[in-house]
C-alpha cells in the first residue's frame, strides 16, 4: 500500500466505469484509497461503484447531489488523506504502471508534480497523441521553467495525467461550473510547486466521446477566453508577464484558433454570427494582431523544428483567415468538415 489518494468523479458513466476501476485495481503500486465521488448519477454507476467498494477495501463511495465534475473533484480533495493525489475521470482508464512510475519519480526526485503523456481514444477505435509534446523527460526547477514549458505546449496541461503532492492544493480548488475546468487549474498549481517532472510515457487513456462537451459549442466555451485573461493577470501578478509576453500570445493564439474553429464546426451560420460577435467583444482586434505578430516571430525562432513551425503556420493561417472574413471562414470550415466526413465514410 502506498500514500496515494485517487479521486474519481463519477457521473452517469455505466458503460465506461468498469474498465476505469479495473485499471485502478490492477495497479502495480496499490493506492491507499480510491474515492469514488458519485455526483448524483441516475444510471447504474452507483451500483457498479458499490460492487467495487465491496470487493476492494481501499475503494470508498462518497455520495453527493449532482454539482458537476469540479465540485466532485473538490469533494475528493477535501476527503483525501494520502500525501499524493491522482485524479482519474471515470470514463477514462490508465496503464497499470502509472501510479508506480509517477510515485517513484516524485519520491526519488522530491518533485511536487510528475506528469505523463495522454493517449487519446476515438470512438472509431483509432488512437492519437497530443502533437508537439516533448519526447524527453523534462526536469523543471523554477517558475520560469514551469511556465515556459506550459506556454510552449511541452506537456499536456490536463489535470488527470499526473501525480501531485497533496499539500500543493492548500486552498486551491476547482472552479465549479467552468468548462474545460481541469487545465484552468494547472497555472495555479505551477505557482505553488518547487519542482516538476514530465515524462513522455502515455499512461493515461482519454476517451474522446462524440456528444461530449468537446464536440459541441455553446456560450460556455467562451470560458476559455476568460481563462486566458485570468492567466495573463496571474503572470502579471507574479512578474512573469514581461518574460513570457510573446510565448503567451502564441499560446493564446492556439486557443483562439481552437475556439473559432469549434464555433464554426458546431454551429449553424446564424449561431456562428452571434458567437463571432461575442468573440470580438472578448478579444479586441489589437490582441489578434499581437497574436499574429508573436506567432510569426516564433516561427523564425523555431525555424529548425519542423513540427513546431508547421503547427505555428497553421494557427497563423487560421487566425488570419478568420480575421479577414469571419463569414468566409465559417464556409471554409464547413466545406473542409464535409470533405473530411466524405473521405472517412468511404
Amino acid at each position: 500500500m502506498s500514500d496515494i489518494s485517487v479521486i474519481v468523479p463519477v457521473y452517469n458513466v455505466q458503460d465506461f466505469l468498469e474498465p476505469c476501476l479495473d485499471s485502478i485495481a490492477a495497479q502495480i503500486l496499490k493506492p491507499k484509497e480510491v474515492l469514488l465521488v458519485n455526483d448524483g448519477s441516475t444510471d447504474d454507476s452507483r451500483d457498479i461503484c458499490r460492487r467495487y467498494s465491496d470487493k476492494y477495501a481501499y475503494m470508498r463511495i462518497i455520495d453527493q447531489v449532482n454539482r458537476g465534475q469540479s465540485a466532485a473533484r473538490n469533494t475528493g480533495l477535501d476527503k483525501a488523506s494520502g500525501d499524493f493525489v491522482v485524479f482519474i475521470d471515470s470514463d477514462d482508464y490508465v496503464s497499470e504502471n502509472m501510479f508506480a512510475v509517477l510515485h517513484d519519480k516524485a519520491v526519488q526526485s522530491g518533485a511536487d508534480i510528475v506528469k505523463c503523456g495522454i493517449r487519446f481514444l476515438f470512438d472509431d477505435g483509432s488512437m492519437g497523441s497530443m502533437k508537439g509534446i516533448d519526447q524527453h523527460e523534462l526536469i523543471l526547477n523554477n517558475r520560469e521553467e514551469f511556465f515556459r514549458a506550459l506556454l510552449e505546449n511541452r506537456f499536456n496541461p490536463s489535470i488527470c495525467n499526473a501525480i501531485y503532492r497533496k499539500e500543493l492544493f492548500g486552498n486551491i480548488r476547482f472552479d465549479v461550473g467552468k468548462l474545460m475546468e481541469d487545465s484552468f487549474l494547472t497555472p495555479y498549481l505551477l505557482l505553488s510547486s518547487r519542482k516538476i517532472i514530465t515524462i513522455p510515457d502515455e499512461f493515461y487513456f482519454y476517451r474522446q466521446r462524440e456528444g461530449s462537451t468537446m464536440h459541441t459549442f455553446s456560450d460556455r466555451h467562451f470560458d476559455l477566453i476568460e481563462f486566458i485573461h485570468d492567466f495573463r493577470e496571474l503572470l502579471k501578478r507574479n512578474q512573469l508577464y514581461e518574460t513570457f509576453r510573446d510565448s503567451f500570445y502564441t499560446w493564446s493564439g492556439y486557443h483562439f484558433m481552437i475556439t473559432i474553429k469549434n464555433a464554426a464546426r458546431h454551429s449553424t451560420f446564424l449561431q456562428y454570427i452571434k458567437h463571432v460577435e461575442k468573440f470580438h467583444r472578448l478579444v479586441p482586434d489589437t490582441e489578434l494582431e499581437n497574436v499574429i505578430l508573436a506567432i510569426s516571430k516564433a516561427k523564425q525562432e523555431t525555424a529548425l523544428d519542423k513540427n513546431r513551425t508547421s503547427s505555428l503556420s497553421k494557427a497563423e493561417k487560421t487566425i488570419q483567415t478568420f480575421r479577414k472574413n469571419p463569414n468566409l471562414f465559417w464556409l471554409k470550415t464547413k466545406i473542409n468538415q464535409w470533405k473530411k466526413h466524405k473521405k472517412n465514410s468511404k
Partner: protein
Amino acid sequence: MVKSDISVIVPVYNVEEYLEQCLESILAQTLQPAEVLLINDGSTDASREICVSYASEYDFVTLIDQENEGQASARNTGLDRASGDFIAFVDSDDYISGHMLATLHIKALSTGADMVKCGTWYYFHEDRIEKLWGIEGEELILEDKRSFFQALLNRKIMHSVCDALYRKEVFDGLRFTVGMFQEDTYIAPSVLMACEKIAVIPDGLYYYRQREGSTMHLFDSRHFDVIACNRKMKDTLVHQDLYDTLQNDFYKWYGVHLMQLVKHAARYSSFLTFRKHVRKLHDMVPDEEMDAIIEAGYKSGGAGHSGNRYNETVKKSAKVLSGFRKNPDLFWLKTKYNSWKKS
C-alpha cells in the same frame, strides 16, 4: 464427447478465409467447451455470416456483436460474458490441436495451476509449419513469482495469451488495455501477478498463422508500444523486489524485442521514415539503457549455453542492436538489401 466448464473466447474481425478452420478445430475438441463466445468486432466481410451459421447450429456457440474496437476490446467483451470456470482464447485466424483443451484442462485440475501453458507452432501453410518456442523441453510447475518471471523472461513460457488455459479468477479485475498495440505483451506481467501456480507442458497445441498483409507486415508508430510493454515489465519487477535478481534476464528479453522492432522498422520503412523512427527510439530508450541491453545480450551467449535457441537469439539481438547503434543508416541499407535478397 464430454462437456466441460471451459469458456472459449474468439475475437472475430474480417477473417472469412480462416474462420471455419478455426471454429472446426474448436468444435472437434476431445473435451467440448461449455461455451464458445464469438465476438464479432464489426467485421465487414463474410465473417459474421459464418459466425451466425455456427451459432445457429451449435447451442453452446454464442455470437456477440460489437462495433469495431479492436482485438483487446473484443477479448474484454468475451471476458465480461464468460461463465465457465476456465477461460481459453483462440484467435480467429489460428487453430488448435484437437486435444488442446483436454490436455490443458486435466493438467490444471491435477496440479491446481491457475494457468497452464503449452507450445505453439508457426503455421505458414500446409507444407510449412515451424516450431516456435516451448515445444521441446520439459514439463514445469512454477510456484512463486520469481520463477514465473524468470520463465517468461527466458522464454520458457511465451507472453502470448492464446497458448494457455486460465482459471477465471486470473481475470478477476484484470482486462486487456484497449489502445495498447501489443496487448498480449502488455498484459503478461499482470497475468503472472494474478497466478499462484503455473504449469507448463511442452506439447505444441496451438497453431499461430503467419499471414502476409497482417499488421505484422507494416510498420508504424504503434509498434513502439512494445517499449511501453517492456517498461511495464520492469516496473512490475521493481515493485516485486525482483528487479535486482532478474535484471539481466529482463535486459535480454527487452533486447530481443528491440531487435525485432528495429529490424521491422527498417524492413517496412522508407529511408526518411526510418530516420524518424530512429530519432523516436533514441528518445524512448536512453543510450545507457541500450548499452546495458547490448552488454547483457553478448554475455548471455557464453560457453555452456550453446545449443540453446533462445540464447542464440539473445546473442544475435546484441549483435543487431550494436550494429544499429553504430550506424542506423547503414543498418537500414543492410536490412533492405537482405530482405531483397531473400525475396
